[in-house]
């Protein structure tokens, strides 16, 4: 066994490679993205890896590979599982041949997501087994176990981790040799692979019969255990990273309590849980996201007529939303165990701190796109539907150009509903290139077919920027390192019947504004494709400079654009040379012509 210092997501990737995975697909999403990237990085050529167009495609492609007997893994974030839920729910009935692991990264907080949904609950809903690692080390071990289980029971298995496991680093002992799992190929069997109401009824019965025994078998694996058994009548039940917080909080409080750590919450490890419930008078459930253990333990107390009191989120003993920390757990345990909180360092209150929300980067072409639409629509009634990506940050002042944001691809279709109810407004839908391919296209077809009147603004920066610059169908690069055909957004739009399609450079203000005006005046579905690469994937131009003698101190550049490279300094605007990418947008806004190239 070799020791490697790995991020949790890297540990999951190596765990899959060491388990003999042959096919990996996914769609980027924080905090899951590095899993697939790491598989691609360490791919010796024996594994097929792809960024799929969306999570549904990724799930179905992985299912196909698993039908043919390969070990397959599909990766996504929690909201991605919503997109892939259709194939997953049916796949639970049909099953697989080769092992299939569905890696879903949950985001308590949420730090970088729309929802605080819990994939453990999704496991219960889909009736599929789920593993919940508490550290990168355990995540590595669980991937192998999940593949073995999946093959044994011929069903997909969920592996759900959370941000602090995904993006935490630790030393992981890894196997020296990768297992080889040859696929035997697809064996035709319509009874098995073609889903029908009658077979689903029979499969449903089988699943319900299988799960209780499976839960108890999993309960006896090393992923479920009790620490400090018999150390008191007040117990704690916990899971995932919360197990680490609980252990640390108990140390800080110099307290001891029996701790049940659950690594396979569904199917329910009933015997293990009931034995723990019998050993204590009370249990505090320390959980993030849904009260999954709390619900299960409460149910088991009823089923087995146990007097044990179950506490947690539903009893007001734990926060109902947000991420836990060692401190939040320490505070809850202090109250629960009746142990005083240790006093920390006491300092005077700090001065008011500047707020620092995330912003579009200096030089980001999206700033130009939003600004052009804002200028073009000045004085006109307009609603701006946004979408998921860096450009959600277009909502910030001073741009203030995102009126709605819901989920991937929703902006295009929300704009259609808005416009039917309020036809005197111009309805814009902003969508990024990767999101356009992900779930934007059906919305555009819906608009053409149903004769909606919207203006689609495609923000094409040639990458999937927010998640760290992954390729997509428009980039012509694949995760196998091959150059493929680029899918043209313009051709897609024209092919589905969008008649008014304009292209413009968002950093050329006059050209951009005129393209938007033309599209807005068109009756029906129109589109402007703003093409300019993300500053992170292109070489910056020389920084611009404010000629202090020419600057009149009107702040127009700052007030209009909100670029992080522009600041006021002694009544004049100044450009931070380390941040400026030379995009030139501010020089087109300055009324005094004071912003120029460094050497001009």
């Amino acid at each position, binding site marked *: 066994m070799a020791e490697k210092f790995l991020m949790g997501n890297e540990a999951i990737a190596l765990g899959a490679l060491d388990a003999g995975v042959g096919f990996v697909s996914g769609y980027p999403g924080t905090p899951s993205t590095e899993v697939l990237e790491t598989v691609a990085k360490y791919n010796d050529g024996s594994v097929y890896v792809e960024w799929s167009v969306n999570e549904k495609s990724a799930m179905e492609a992985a299912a196909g590979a698993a039908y043919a007997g390969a070990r397959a893994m599909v990766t996504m974030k929690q909201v991605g599982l919503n997109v892939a839920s259709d194939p997953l729910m049916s796949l639970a009935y049909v099953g697989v041949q080769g092992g299939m692991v569905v890696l879903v990264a949950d985001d308590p907080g949420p730090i970088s997501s729309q929802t605080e949904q819990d994939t453990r609950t999704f496991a219960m809903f889909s009736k599929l087994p789920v593993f919940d690692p508490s550290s990168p080390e355990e995540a590595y071990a669980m991937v192998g176990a999940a593949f073995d289980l999946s093959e044994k029971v011929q069903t997909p298995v969920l592996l759900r981790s959370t941000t602090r496991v995904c993006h935490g680093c630790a030393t992981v002992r890894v196997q020296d040799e990768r297992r080889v799992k040859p696929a035997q190929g697809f064996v035709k069997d319509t009874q098995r692979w073609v889903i029908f109401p009658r077979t689903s009824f029979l499969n449903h019965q089988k699943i319900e019969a299988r799960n209780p025994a499976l839960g108890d078998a999993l309960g006896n694996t090393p992923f479920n255990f009790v620490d400090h058994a018999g150390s008191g009548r007040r117990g704690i039940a916990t899971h995932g990273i919360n197990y680490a917080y609980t252990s*640390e909080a108990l140390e800080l409080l110099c307290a001891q309590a029996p701790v049940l750590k659950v690594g396979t919450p569904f199917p329910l490890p009933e015997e293990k849980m009931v034995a723990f419930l019998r050993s204590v008078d009370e249990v505090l459930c320390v959980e993030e996201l849904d009260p999954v253990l709390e619900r299960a333990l409460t149910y088991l107390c009823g089923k087995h007529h146990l007097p044990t009191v179950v506490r947690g989120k539903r009893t007001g003993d734990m926060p109902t939303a947000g991420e836990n920390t060692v401190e939040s757990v320490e505070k809850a345990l202090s109250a629960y165990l009746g142990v005083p909180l240790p006093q920390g360092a006491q300092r*005077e209150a700090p001065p008011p701190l*500047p707020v620092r929300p995330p912003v579009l980067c200096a030089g980001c072409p999206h700033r130009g796109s939003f600004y052009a639409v804002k200028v073009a629509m000045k004085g006109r009634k307009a609603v701006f539907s946004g979408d998921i990506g860096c450009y959600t940050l277009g909502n910030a002042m001073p741009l203030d150009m995102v009126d709605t944001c819901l989920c991937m691809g929703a902006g295009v279709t929300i704009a259609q509903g808005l416009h039917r109810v309020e036809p005197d407004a111009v309805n814009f839908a902003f969508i990024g290139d990767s999101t356009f391919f992900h779930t934007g296209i059906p919305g555009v077809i819906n608009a053409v077919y149903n004769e909606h009147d919207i203006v689609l603004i495609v923000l094409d920066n040639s990458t999937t920027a927010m998640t760290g610059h992954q390729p997509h169908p428009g980039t012509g690069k694949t995760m196998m390192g091959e150059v493929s055909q680029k899918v043209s957004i313009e051709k897609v739009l024209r092919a589905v019947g969008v008649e008014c399609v304009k292209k413009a450079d968002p950093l050329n203000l006059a050209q951009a504004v005129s393209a938007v005006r033309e599209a807005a005046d068109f009756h029906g579905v129109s589109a402007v494709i703003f093409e300019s690469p993300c500053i992170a994937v292109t070489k910056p131009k020389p920084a611009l400079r404010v000629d202090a003698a020419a600057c009149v101190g009107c702040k127009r550049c700052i007030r209009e654009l909100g670029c992080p490279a522009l600041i006021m300094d002694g009544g004049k605007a100044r450009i931070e040379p380390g941040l400026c990418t030379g995009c030139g947008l501010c020089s087109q806004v300055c009324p005094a012509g004071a912003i120029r190239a460094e050497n001009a």
Partner: protein
Amino acid sequence: MNCILAGVGGQGTVLASKLIAQAGRTAGRQVRTAETIGMAQRGGCVVSHVRTGDVVLSPLVPLGQADVLIGFEPAEAVRCLPYLKAEGTAIVCTKAVRPVTASLTGSSYDGSEMIEYLQKNVPHLILVDGEAICAAVGSPRALNVALLGAALPALGIAPADMEQALRASVRPQFVEMNLAALRLGAQAQKKADEKGETDHD
């Protein structure tokens, strides 16, 4: 040893925490880290946690448990000060990064108020003129390594271990520039140390 790195997205906190972790591993300790990755990286507040020791349970440093706070920006250092132990050491870059919101609302934030607060409230404070070091080595990206240079004694990391970690993590063409920044950071720490001693005399 618990260390918090606090900065603004894009300042290089993630690489700095990786370097501390690597150097800690070279010294044979168990290491856990936690990072901010995602939306906050676009100019928002970012915090990295690095913990080394014989047994490390959680990847997050609890409040009041950090031995070292590396502040890449004065207000971010103040924001994360509750992590620092009463007797802990703070290494802080004096250059303020003004948020866009401050420029818009006409707020006069320039970091000086934060520095004064830190000087009053942190007994072991090392202020580093990161801007000057970056100018001296010719790269705005050297700030993270300059701060590490100043933090080495507090982190208990031998310079040789950090140099080794740097060579292993940085692209060859940037090694010399980073080593220079590391040395200038270490010099800034020595100067602060000497000044501190004379002040106490």
